């Protein structure tokens, strides 16, 4: 049963991942990416990493992808404005790089003799993850949070425009 479910979710993830990069409509791509996240969450559940699965859906599918869709819709990207992936020369480069990298990772995985298994903290309850985050990895965790804050402040500063000073012509009106 578990093996069947694993292949089902893996197929879903890979198939929707393929659709993400081959669709010419950006909205369709984004929606397939959401489906891809669902497949991943299903695989997390099979690994007993329930917390991770829920966070995957809540953060990536529920928040980040909504913002992506938001931006795509505001920009009103027409499918024709994007260079067609299937016809471009760079397609061959993409495929070559993917194959080489995939081969390297597969080779590394086969060479690994000892199966270290997943970190036990990642599976099961939220308490185990909280324990690792707030005890052993407290400093990296806080530094990451600070980094995100800096990025947000930076984005706000860059997006902010100087309020237009009232010019003579505007005052006349």
């Amino acid at each position, binding site marked *: 049963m578990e093996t069947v479910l694993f292949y089902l979710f893996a197929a879903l993830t890979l198939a929707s991942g393929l659709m993400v990069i081959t669709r010419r*409509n950006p*909205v*369709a791509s984004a*929606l397939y990416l*959401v489906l891809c996240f669902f497949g991943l969450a299903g695989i997390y559940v099979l690994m007993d990493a*329930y*917390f991770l699965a*829920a*966070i995957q*859906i*809540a953060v990536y*599918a*529920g*928040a980040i992808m*909504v*913002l992506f*869709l*938001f931006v795509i*819709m*505001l920009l009103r990207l027409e499918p024709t404005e994007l260079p067609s992936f299937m016809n471009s020369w760079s397609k061959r480069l993409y495929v070559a790089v993917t194959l080489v990298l995939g081969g390297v990772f597969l080779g590394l995985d086969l060479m690994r003799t000892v199966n270290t298994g997943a970190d036990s903290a990642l599976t*099961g*309850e*939220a308490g185990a993850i909280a324990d690792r985050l707030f005890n052993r990895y407290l400093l990296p965790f806080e530094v990451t949070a600070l980094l995100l804050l800096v990025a947000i402040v930076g984005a706000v500063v860059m997006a902010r425009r100087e309020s237009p000073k009232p010019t003579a012509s505007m005052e006349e009106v």
Partner: protein
Amino acid sequence: MTGLLITLGKILAVFTVTMLTVAYLTLLERKVCAYIQLRKGPNRVGPWGLFQPIADGLKFVFKEDFVPAGANRALHAVAPVLAMAPALTTCAVIPFGSTLPMFGGEVNMIIADLSIGVLFVFAIGSLSVYGLITGGWASNNKYALFGALRAGAQMISYEITLGLAIIPIIMATGSLRLSDIVAYQGAHPWFMIVQPLGFLLFVVASFAETNRLPFDIPEAEPELVAGYHTEYSSMKFAGFYMGEYAAMITAAALIVTLFCGGYHLPWLENLNFFKEHATLLGLLHIGTFLAKMGICLFGFIWVRWSLPRFRYDQLMKLGWKVLLPLGLINILIYGLFTLKDSI
């Protein structure tokens, strides 16, 4: 095998009750609205208009299913399903009763008692916006697109308040399991009483998440025709409508579970009479839960027909500049109280 059958039975029961409630909630909405406006409301189809939802359903089936020119047909068709599915999925983790002795054992009145129940609800709940966004975008209509964009902005903003409002509850119970939270409230005062601020924040954010007045700006009729479902007709339109009411039912069930003691009925359930009759106690719990949900749903309808709609910028201001800081302060206050108790 029996376990699988019991689970299937529970799914069937919850689904049927939810869909029936959706149908009759539309009638209740029109009736309550009518009485608030000193009218009679639907009263022609059956006694007290009781067959009105059936007539409405039949009418929807026979209406023309119109797809506007230039619309994305596939997404246009999928959107109503996306709007309805999350609300129905969330029902799976809500404990709607304690236990009932059946088939020679105790059967838990919950479909799936997940250890991360609260997170599951929020994860699935955060997906409900996709139906609105894709529906509005796929219609190829500027009003629908406006509605979709508003829905996206509103839901992301108020989800944060929703999440912050329940953190003190998780701090108090030390569990993300919904049945643990209900059990805690069986032994302690309800969270509605101990955490009034969190309760208020959660209820306000729930109204925004379900797109109900005073926060129904994604479909604000005077500005956007009908918002994201402007270009929808027939059963597809009914899908959006049912999605909205199903989301309302889920929100009411969550408010009851998290803040109003779930299926617990103080004092009465501790009577000796119920200790001897386990079946009656189980039925009492289910009845209590349904009654509390009914009160919540009535509140949703009551508010809708009493308050005017917020303006878009006011809504954003309320979400980010009032509710979000209040949510953080609520966590801080509760944290200080816990700290004081532990010293």
